[in-house]
């Protein structure tokens, strides 16, 4: 289900998206030139609307107060990002860097058996649970459903489930109607960003043991 990516990008362009889905959108944008082209149209639309706004007179002293603050303001040199190892920079697009201050190896990886591991990212907005999910090629995550929405961006490798195949840069949005079992394609490990806005439920027998562990 990727039909609603366009509306997610629309909400990202207008500034309406909260941190969780915005992280998924920004990661998708970093990986996909076509999504960036769409974002340019959306932002140009915002710019055109802004250009046509009826001006509102500002206080007489606002200019002087602003000029006072120009001196000593440092020139912008890019987003402040922690010093990261080359491997982390290679595997993760820039929007994720601030969430892995100690690199991929510095994350607290939780193992789900031998073939799946997951690390929770420090998202400030507590309504969301964002993780990096690493699945060994040929292996999968248990069958699960969602109460809310699950956003998945494939960072490397590829996976398939009941809804199709997803390669690096692909984006998937699943709602509560989807019960799926994502499996990494053979030959290469799959690394994904996942963002959940409500708890996930594993639906198999094993899931009953695991469900209590997946908490916000």
């Amino acid at each position, binding site marked *: 289900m990727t039909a*609603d990516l*366009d*509306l997610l990008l*629309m*909400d990202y*362009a*207008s*500034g*309406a*998206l*909260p*941190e969780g889905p*915005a992280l998924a*959108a*920004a990661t998708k*944008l*970093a990986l996909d*030139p076509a999504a*960036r082209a769409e974002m*340019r*149209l*959306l*932002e*140009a*639309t*915002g*710019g*055109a*609307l*802004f*250009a*046509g*706004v*009826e*001006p*509102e*007179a*500002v206080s007489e002293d*606002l*200019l002087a*107060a*602003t*000029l006072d*603050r*120009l001196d000593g*303001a*440092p*020139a*912008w040199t*890019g*987003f402040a*990002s922690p010093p990261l190892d080359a491997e982390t920079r290679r595997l993760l*697009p*820039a*929007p*994720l860097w*601030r969430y892995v201050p100690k690199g991929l190896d510095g994350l607290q990886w939780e193992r789900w058996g031998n073939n799946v591991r997951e690390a929770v990212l420090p*998202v*400030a*907005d507590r309504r969301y649970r964002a993780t990096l999910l690493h699945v060994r090629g040929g292996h999968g995550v248990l069958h699960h459903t969602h109460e809310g929405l699950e956003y998945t961006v494939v960072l490397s490798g590829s996976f398939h489930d009941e809804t199709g195949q997803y390669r690096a840069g692909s984006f998937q949005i699943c709602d509560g109607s989807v019960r799926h079992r994502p499996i990494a394609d053979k030959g290469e490990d799959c690394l994904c960003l996942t963002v959940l806005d409500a708890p996930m439920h594993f639906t198999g027998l094993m899931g009953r043991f695991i469900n209590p562990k997946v908490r916000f």
Partner: protein
Amino acid sequence: MTQQAAISTIGPAPAPWRRTGSKRRMQQRTVTSPEQARRLEALVGRIACQRDRGAFIELFQHFAPRLKAFMMRGGADPETAEEIVQEAMITVWNKAEQFDPARAALSTWIFTIARNKRIDMLRRQVRPEIDPLDIAIDDEPSPDARMALAQASADLRGSIALLPADQRQVLMLAFFEDKSHGVISVELGLPLGTVKSRIRLALARLRGMIGEHLP
């Protein structure tokens, strides 16, 4: 003079925030011509190269009142709106080197700065973003992109004006009031599917009219 005074005592008192000047004059001041857009772009260049305060003052006089209106439409009171205007204009000064007229119109660049300040200061939320300095992102615009973009931006304003009112309304609620399509559907009392299709129709039309001109 006496006639004017007589009228104002009869009619309802004008709202204090509405100027009573002619609407036509107001619109002339609001719309930015391509020549004016180029002149404003050159001001950003002077800030980037020479830290030119005179250029900043001119830019401030054009954009600060528009930024204030934008923030107030987004729900800020006048004082908060001016605080955010100040921060946005300081960001314009600091990031002037980052502005590339081949990639975005000046009004678009300033819109994105204003949008981000609004998220930061009004909503106090974190916005994950792509870093334009990320070496992995290399959408190099074609050599004639600059000309095409100037034309496309002018066309876009015209195209938005030609949209059906219900489609223009959802775009304005989204971009001026940073409402998600879900919130818009609740506020307008419309099914989510209706709002989605209005947004999609509007964007398809704009894409068809100017999409190929954007870098």
